[in-house]
């Protein structure tokens, strides 16, 4: 648990630096590798709930704040997204704001730290 807390704090501190640098910091690379290898336990629940792996990885382990991703109350009219009318969703009585997928490109593109979903060579 201590290891996870240390990682989250350290990675969070590096997050701003990551934006400005071309190369991701070593700690972020290590965390991503450890999550994939199973060295860091993120549970087995594949779901988008707060208890699931998805939020555990991004929020607890990588230290990303809710507001960092959930920024939009509603997408602009001209935003071309099939599901844009779903937001704001109500989850457990709280409104969940929309996430703009563009935020994911940086880490999830080929050549970066996270599992590659975008810009495959």
């Amino acid at each position, binding site marked *: 648990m201590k290891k996870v807390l240390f990682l989250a704090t350290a990675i969070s501190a590096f997050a701003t630096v990551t934006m400005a640098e071309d190369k991701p910091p070593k700690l972020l690379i290590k965390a991503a590798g450890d999550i994939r290898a199973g060295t860091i336990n993120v549970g087995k629940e*594949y779901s*988008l709930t707060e208890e699931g792996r*998805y939020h555990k990885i991004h929020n607890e382990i990588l230290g990303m704040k809710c507001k960092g991703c959930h920024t939009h109350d509603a997408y602009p*009219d001209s935003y071309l*997204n099939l599901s844009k009318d779903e937001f704001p969703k109500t989850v457990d009585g709280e409104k969940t704001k929309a996430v703009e997928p563009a935020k994911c490109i940086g880490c999830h593109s080929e050549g970066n730290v996270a*599992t590659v979903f*975008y810009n495959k060579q």
Partner: protein
Amino acid sequence: MAKFVRVIDTERCFGCRSCVAACAVENHFTPESPWNVMVEYETGHYPNTARNFVTMNCMHCEHPSCKAACDAAGFKAISKNEFGVVLVDYDKCVGCGYCATTCPYGVPQLNGAKVEQLYPGAEKTAYEQMGNLSPLHRKKARTVEKCTFCWHKLEKAIAAGRVNEIGKTPDFTPTCDLVCPVQARLFGDIDDPTSNVSTYIARKKATQLKKAFGTMPQVYYVLNGGEY
């Protein structure tokens, strides 16, 4: 091998939503899990304004991020076949929703614990009462569903050896593309340089949406205001 793409001309589309209604009937999509929606918005400043209509369905990407996420999670419920169609295997899907979060176009629709019918609270439509025309028409709770390019029609053409009629014969063409009253939608083989879609894309400079994601969508748009 043929590779099927769709072209949507937003300069011709006037927002009648026939394609949306046709898809709902053909594929029994429920209001909670739409397969085809119309995004409508205004651009410009008075007096120079325009109303824009963009229908969105699955882009059947060449490098689908939904499939990459599903594979990475180990479920392998999403496949892309040799004709370029991205399909969800409802028996393998566990409803984790990872595909829905990674799709740049917000396409995959995750069903809740209860699947509603087309008109909740009313009698099932005649079409719904016919039962499942194909495994892809099953409605399953906690499962992801999305546009299939009307695969149940395409596979009939393939089985009959009539692939060259896809996009031309009504039985072998996605229903949304058939019903457009102003021919703003085309469907065909992009590997054939003489096909309707190949020539239209070239002539009208059709492009894909959100190219920054590098997923290489197979739905092309003729857009009013340049690239999006």
